[in-house]
């Protein structure tokens, strides 16, 4: 049962589509977009609700475009 819940916010306009953040996420939360940003890169995006706020993705992002949020869950809140 998860005790924490995370969310990531990616500045998709600044993402360079390097994909380094994808394999370091053990929750498979990140995938690359089909669409391009204005610089022509496929950008990283959050695709599920499994993020636990571990910050791995943000640590390896060379462009520092990922912000990570995390909350502690009260047991009852885990439905």
């Amino acid at each position, binding site marked *: 049962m998860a005790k924490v*819940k995370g969310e990531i916010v990616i500045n998709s306009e600044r993402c360079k589509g390097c*994909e380094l953040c994808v394999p370091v996420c053990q929750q498979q939360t990140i995938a690359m977009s089909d669409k391009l940003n204005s610089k022509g890169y496929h950008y990283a995006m959050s695709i599920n609700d499994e993020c636990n706020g571990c910050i791995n993705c943000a640590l390896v*992002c060379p462009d520092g475009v990922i912000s990570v949020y995390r909350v502690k869950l009260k047991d009852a809140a885990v439905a």
Partner: protein
Amino acid sequence: MEEELTRESICQQENLVYSRTPLMTPKALSYCPGCGHGTAHRLIMEVIEEMNLQSQTIGVAPVGCSVLAYDFLDIDMQQAAHGRAPAVATGIKRLLPDKFVFTYQGDGDLAAIGTGETIHACNRGENICIFFVNNGIYGMTGGQMAPTTLPNMKTATSPYGRDVVSMGYPLKITEMIAMLPGTCFVTRQSVHTPANVRKTKKAIQKAVQCQLDKKGLSFVEIVSNCNSGWKMTPLESNKWMEENMFPVFPLGDIKVPKP
């Protein structure tokens, strides 16, 4: 009823656990996608922020892809002629000993044209930090062979691979300067995985502390990728780096500071 957790309720300032340090300027980095220079920059700035050194720091930028580091690091900076950053940093630190002074240099800058400056600054034991990003190639100029290029590695100037008989061996300048009594802390790290990023940040913290404690020159090598120069995707380049660069340039501390 429990309050429902929404994306909006989680993404609140009080729940923020990681974001880019404000000591990185808002400018988009000029580096190729996936290049380790960006991560290396950010870690140095995180340490300077956490140790509250922004207003007393002077960085020295090299010639190489990171020539524009002064555009990205929100601190006072001076850009040096190719390879001369340790000499410039020496002058700055000697005149302004209360400043925190570091150089940031690539392998072409530090271990080719600047070999003399590097070795003598280390040998003099200048009380500065050197952050050395070794990607085994001249990234900026289009991927020419560097002294750090691996045996048999193909580059623009070794198109059949580096033949060690005619072109020499990869220069392990970090091991060389560790032998000098002027250096106090010498380590080799990388920034390609979350665990390595954490270790590199600790190494940078230690290097900064050595300077604050006036212990002499601390030297942090970061083995990094040049996916453009190596002609690989960023993920391929990191894997290639683990398999090929790390056996020649093994990670870990080479010299630890005396207590």
